[in-house]
């Protein structure tokens, strides 16, 4: 979905002194060109759907943080005078059979679901990038050991193992985040390793080695920045995946436990009343799809924007 429009004003430099200083700092001097960051930003802006998705996601996460202040009711507050109401003005998403406000519960459920998504993304970015870089850089037995482990984790049946772990530990938001991350990091590690293998033997890395830069510093300053593109894209995909996985495990009753609402476990309760109270099934599910869709669109836009081979 690359839009090939010519952009206007191609040589205008941004007047931001901070960015200009950075250009000089990187040794490219003050030229009539664009910094890498500007190029990426311009390309990303062209991807309208990704822009909108990014903004919506930002609002969703702000909403999750602000939930205790913006939620109209308490998530456990039972109101027996307004049980099982269809969506109306005072309850925009209706109420459940205990008179709890569905909108409030969707807000609180979103906090858990979106925290798990972001948490898994962050963990896997750290573990996967670390393992991938070390594996690709050192090669040989380090590589075969780490990648052997990665392949081994990939062989375990993912959802069933997660369910067994759920029955052992009684997941909360933190533990389910850790466990999903521990089962999903190999994807990122394999991807990063592949990228590192293609960087490792390039001249600038050899030059750094020749002048005596330490291995750690080479990995940090010369290799890590060049894996940035694929890491960011894969991380967004993992955030979406983690949100969906959490909802599946919670839906099956082995994830986040009630009374703490999550989008997944709200749907477990909704199932028995599905035919009479459709709103309890529709809204939490719509939120999962909507959030995951936004994350995936954002990832798609980032993929186009961060692709170094794309034409400007």
């Amino acid at each position, binding site marked *: 979905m690359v839009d090939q429009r010519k952009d206007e004003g191609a040589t205008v430099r941004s007047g931001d002194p901070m960015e200009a200083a950075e250009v000089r700092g990187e040794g490219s001097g003050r030229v009539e060109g664009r910094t890498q960051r500007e190029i990426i930003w311009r390309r990303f802006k062209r991807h309208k759907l990704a822009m909108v998705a990014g903004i919506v996601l930002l609002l969703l996460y702000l909403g999750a943080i602000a939930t205790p202040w913006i939620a109209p009711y308490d998530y456990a507050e039972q109101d027996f005078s307004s049980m099982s109401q269809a969506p109306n003005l005072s309850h925009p998403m209706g109420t459940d059979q205990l008179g709890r406000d569905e909108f409030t519960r969707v807000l609180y459920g979103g906090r858990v679901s979106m925290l798990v998504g972001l948490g898994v993304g962050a963990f896997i970015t750290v573990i996967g990038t670390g393992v991938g870089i070390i594996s690709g850089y050192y090669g040989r037995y380090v590589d075969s050991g780490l990648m052997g482990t990665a392949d081994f984790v990939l062989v375990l*049946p993912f959802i069933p193992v997660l369910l067994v772990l759920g029955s052992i530990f009684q997941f909360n938001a933190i533990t389910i985040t850790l466990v999903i991350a521990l089962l999903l990091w190999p994807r990122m590690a394999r991807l990063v390793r592949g990228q590192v293998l293609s960087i490792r033997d390039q001249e600038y890395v050899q030059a750094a080695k020749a002048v005596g830069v330490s291995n750690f510093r080479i990995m940090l300053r010369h290799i890590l920045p060049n894996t940035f593109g694929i890491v960011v894209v894969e991380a967004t995909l993992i955030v979406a995946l983690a949100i969906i996985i959490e909802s599946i495990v919670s839906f099956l009753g082995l994830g986040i436990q009630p009374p703490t609402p999550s989008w997944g476990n709200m749907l477990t309760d909704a199932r028995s009343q599905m035919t009479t109270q459709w709103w309890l099934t529709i809204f939490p599910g719509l939120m999962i799809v909507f959030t995951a869709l936004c994350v995936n669109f954002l990832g798609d836009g980032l993929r186009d924007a961060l692709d170094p081979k794309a034409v400007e």
Partner: protein
Amino acid sequence: MLAYIVRKTLSSIVVLFLASIVLFLLTNLSGDPLLQLRQNPQVSGEDLRRISAEYGLDQPIYVQYGIWFKDAVQLDFGTSFKQNTDVNSIIARRIWPTALLMGSSLLLAVTIAVPFGVYSAIKKYSIIDKLGTFASFLGYSMPIFWLALIMQLVLAVYLTNWLGTRIFYVSGYSMNGIVDLLQHLTLPALSLAVIQIAEFSRFQRGAMLDVLSSDYLRTARAKGLSRRKVYLKHGLRNALIPTITIVALSIGTVFGGAVVTETVFSWPGLGFLLIDSLQKGDYNVTRALLVIGAALIIFFNLVADIVYSFVDPRVRYD
């Protein structure tokens, strides 16, 4: 070539052995099969010890694994703690519903996704391609259980109320003739297929795009072959290779999808059995299912590797 297959097979067996150890320990923690007896004041400590010994639960864990392993190699997965029968016969009853469900959804997904992926690649950036891209994003973002719930609500409940007669059933499994079977099978198979279509069609599109930009395809066009012949004979053949791999790999992971779909539709297959055994703490059944799940993934990884080495002569065997 033969050496390559032998080496791959041997390493698969080693991986399966390691996986069985991990899964054994994991399932061992997942429940206490004697919990009910322990809580029952009428069962004396003497009885408990006797029952423990009967199941071999009083042995140290590595001895338990050894005993389990010796039987499992001969495909005997022990006895259920909760039902008075062996695990094998419990699983045997559940295999066909799962195989039927998975087979039909996979067939549906491949017959829709492959032509669609190829078409989207040939007509890149057309309206159909863009709609397809959007739809597959939607598929990727959809938790399968919610799709299944919505299908139940719309196609089973609302449609039945509106028509006055029932076309699709919400749940269960029944084999009274082909029509009855289809009425029960359609919704669960469709909900599984939707996610797979999203995945496979994107994959097929990407593979076809790669092939379309290759030199040999340009040569084929340049020497005057018809568009149709070039696309179908030279293009599609090679573009199918990655798809074969991804389809083979996805057969290995049937359990994940089966657990969710079978729970929602009360489909009496292996996934339903997994949830059931977890809830009951019947970990001999859970263990057998997990090890079989891992074995399937490992096996189809192996199949994908071997098939790939046959259809793609560029794969090297060192």
